[in-house]
């Protein structure tokens, strides 16, 4: 393991010390990790020189698992324990998986409505499976740099709801990653294109991956990426094209059936191979050896287009809607960025070109572009690019609201609102003497609660008895820069309060994560302690660095007494890093410095705002 760099008290560390930050594209069919090296974003290869890691995890009898290409090899022989496209199950319950019968897995409902997949190693949640993929990429990056990672930016489809984003963050935490930010995949793609090509204007990002389709309308001006609208379909992707092609092929030989789990996997793989071949060939033969007989069908590109016409039309419908939401016409769009391997399909290129009346941009590798953009953003967030002008202003993809009388949704934060944001709405009681109020938080665009996604339920108790309609309950929704929600409710007259971080019914509680972390690192107790201590040291070091740079920039804002107090806290922490052997005690020291610098941080922020205003005044004069 790399040694931590520790500087003498009062001595500032090397200002050019680089923090290793990576961008991770956690994809449905494959995942990648990228980092900025020598000013250039590049994907990190594995030992065999391959940058792509198939998002496939196989659980083997005992403790073993295979991840990536090895797991893909086993998919046909051990489909039940080989989990592919797990991203489609993230933050989802059993009832959400419509095509369960077509999948080889045995799903079970776990507590809190979340689904699990039954494997030879017991039930595995989608969060655990994703964590295996993320951990593999983390080790790849740590091996490449021979250093610990400072943090990662992880991409999610713009269309992901709160439950899916939370599940992704949980998986990263389980994999031991410090998440700097979740960003939308299309935004990451635009970062990769925007900076490389220095383009300005309105762009559409058309991202057809293995399992999800996203369309985003972005405006790029002077280093600001503004998301005007997002849309798409979180259950539409290349997998569906494979399935449609497989169904079309099976329809030609009605005597055959894909009866077993193995059959389904073999058929899907054959369909995928045929699809990929049809990108360059006009016709191919689709072969699959099924248990009921041998399937062999000649498929032309026209057949394929015909079989998938409805899917392509769904993409274009979503594009129209996103443009309407942005209040733009297709003529306003200066360029269309193509992302995701599925955009290689000729019918997609053609449909996009026909709709926009211009050829789409595809000069970057559509598989890599998201990871590259995430790496650029990670580098910036880690503070390696201080001169960077890049600022991401994101919007919330789906409206957030609360259930009211009669199963109706009262929208509190509308879709496409710029985040971070906080919005409040007042509610009241409907019965005389009512002392508690049940709050049901939902996400979605429909008017009926039953058509929206249920995120959380909580109760506000202890309201003093009043006449119906007299209580004034203010419900506040706060969405942070990652798009994650917390909800508070306060009765204004009595001051009674309740709040909840929306760990939706599908997410994991912190306790569950702690338990899983322990299970994941089933190493000796001593190793666990050592690990906790290393992590506490990294945190302490991070806090010291941050405080030093804050003091260097704005130390003059402090009185001598305040400065002395902070210096003392820093000296204590500095000493603790070197001598303290107990992780908890070191964490407490870090916390003390964090608390002790809170007022200073507030003061600095005010000055930043002042500076921004002053800068504006000079510009406008």
């Amino acid at each position: 393991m790399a040694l931590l760099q520790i500087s003498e008290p009062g001595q500032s560390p090397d200002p050019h010390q680089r923090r290793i930050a990576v961008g991770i594209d956690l994809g449905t069919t494959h995942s990648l990790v990228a980092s900025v090296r020598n000013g250039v974003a590049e994907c990190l290869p594995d030992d065999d020189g391959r940058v792509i890691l198939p998002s496939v995890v196989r659980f083997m009898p005992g403790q073993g698992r295979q991840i990536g290409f090895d797991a893909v090899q086993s998919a046909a022989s051990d489909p039940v324990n080989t989990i592919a496209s797990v991203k489609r199950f993230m933050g989802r319950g059993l009832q959400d998986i419509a095509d369960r019968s077509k999948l080889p897995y045995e799903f079970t409902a776990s507590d809190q409505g979340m689904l699990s997949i039954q494997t030879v190693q017991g039930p595995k949640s989608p969060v655990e499976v994703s964590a295996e993929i993320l951990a593999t990429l983390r080790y790849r990056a740590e091996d490449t740099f021979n250093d610990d990672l400072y943090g990662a930016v992880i991409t999610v489809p713009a269309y992901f709801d709160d439950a899916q984003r939370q599940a992704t963050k949980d998986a990263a935490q389980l994999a031991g990653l410090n998440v700097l930010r979740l960003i939308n995949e299309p935004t990451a793609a635009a970062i990769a294109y925007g900076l490389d090509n220095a383009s300005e204007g309105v762009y559409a990002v058309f991202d057809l991956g293995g399992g999800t389709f996203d369309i985003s309308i972005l405006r790029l001006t002077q280093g600001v990426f503004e998301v005007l609208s997002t849309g798409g379909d979180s259950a539409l992707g290349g997998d569906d094209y494979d399935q449609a092609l497989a169904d079309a092929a099976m329809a030609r030989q009605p005597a055959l059936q894909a009866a077993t789990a193995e059959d389904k996997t073999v058929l899907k793989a054959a369909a995928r191979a045929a699809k990929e071949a049809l990108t360059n060939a006009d016709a191919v033969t689709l072969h699959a050896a099924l248990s009921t007989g041998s399937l062999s069908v000649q498929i032309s590109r026209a057949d394929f287009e015909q079989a998938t016409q409805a899917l392509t039309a769904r993409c274009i419908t979503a594009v129209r809607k996103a443009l309407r939401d942005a209040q733009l016409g297709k003529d306003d769009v200066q360029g269309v960025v193509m992302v995701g391997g599925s955009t290689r399909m000729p019918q997609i290129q053609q449909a996009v070109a026909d709709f926009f009346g211009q050829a789409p941009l595809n000069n970057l590798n559509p598989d890599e572009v998201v990871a590259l953009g995430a790496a650029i953003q990670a580098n910036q967030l880690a503070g390696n690019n201080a001169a960077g002008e890049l600022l991401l202003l994101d919007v919330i993809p789906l409206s957030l609201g609360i259930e009211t009388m009669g199963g109706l949704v009262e929208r509190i934060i509308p879709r496409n609102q710029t985040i971070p944001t906080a919005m409040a709405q007042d509610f009241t009681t409907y019965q005389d003497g009512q002392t508690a109020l049940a709050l049901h938080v939902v996400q979605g665009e429909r008017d009926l609660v039953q058509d929206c996604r249920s995120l959380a339920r909580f109760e506000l108790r202890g309201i003093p008895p009043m006449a119906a309609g007299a209580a004034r309950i203010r419900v506040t929704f706060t969405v942070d820069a990652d798009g994650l929600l917390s909800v508070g409710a306060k009765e204004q007259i009595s001051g009674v309060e309740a709040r909840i971080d929306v760990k939706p019914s599908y997410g994991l509680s912190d306790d569950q994560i702690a338990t899983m972390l322990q299970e994941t690192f089933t190493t000796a107790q001593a190793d666990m302690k050592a690990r906790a201590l290393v992590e506490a040291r990294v945190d302490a070091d991070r806090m010291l660095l941050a405080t030093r740079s804050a003091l260097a920039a704005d130390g003059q804002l402090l009185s001598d007494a305040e400065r002395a107090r902070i210096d003392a806290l820093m000296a204590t922490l500095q000493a603790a890093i070197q001598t303290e052997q107990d992780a908890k005690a070191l964490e407490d020291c870090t916390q003390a410095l964090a608390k002790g610098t809170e007022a200073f941080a507030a003061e600095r922020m005010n000055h930043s705002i002042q500076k921004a205003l002053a800068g504006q005044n000079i510009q406008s004069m």
Partner: protein
Amino acid sequence: MISLQANDFELFDVPVQYAQDRAQLDARWKALQREAHPDRFAAEGAAAQRIAMQWSVRINEAYQRLKDPLKRAAYLCELQGAPVQAENNTAMPAAFLMQQMEWRESLEDTNSAQSLEALADEVAAEQRRVQQTLGDLLDVAKDPAQAVGQVRALMFIERFTQEVNAKLDRLT
């Protein structure tokens, strides 16, 4: 010293009036977010993150209100002592209500995209007229009490516009 308690106009350093330059609002919003967005403080600990979040939320809130003519007008009326109180006061002039009824009837009877577009154009023209009147009342006559009636009219018009658009979405 600017603070989180500053009103929207102070925060954006623009004149306290209805008429606003959208390009200037956009530029200030970006300049302020450039300073205050939590991403700028990703490496600086939880306290800085929390404060950045508060500022960033406050800036977005002000921006949403300032850039929207209806929200801006309602906010300005309230700042100047004439709150709109839309839920308690729905009294509107008879002529306005007549026009609303006519619009609603033609919305129900119309089933072609083309005549819906025509209706949408008519409503948009009325919306611009009311906005113009609002500007005169707030910025020239300095009469927020009178302006409140126009704000309510604008609320009716916006809600109706949404219904027209929803039907257009269904037809196209």
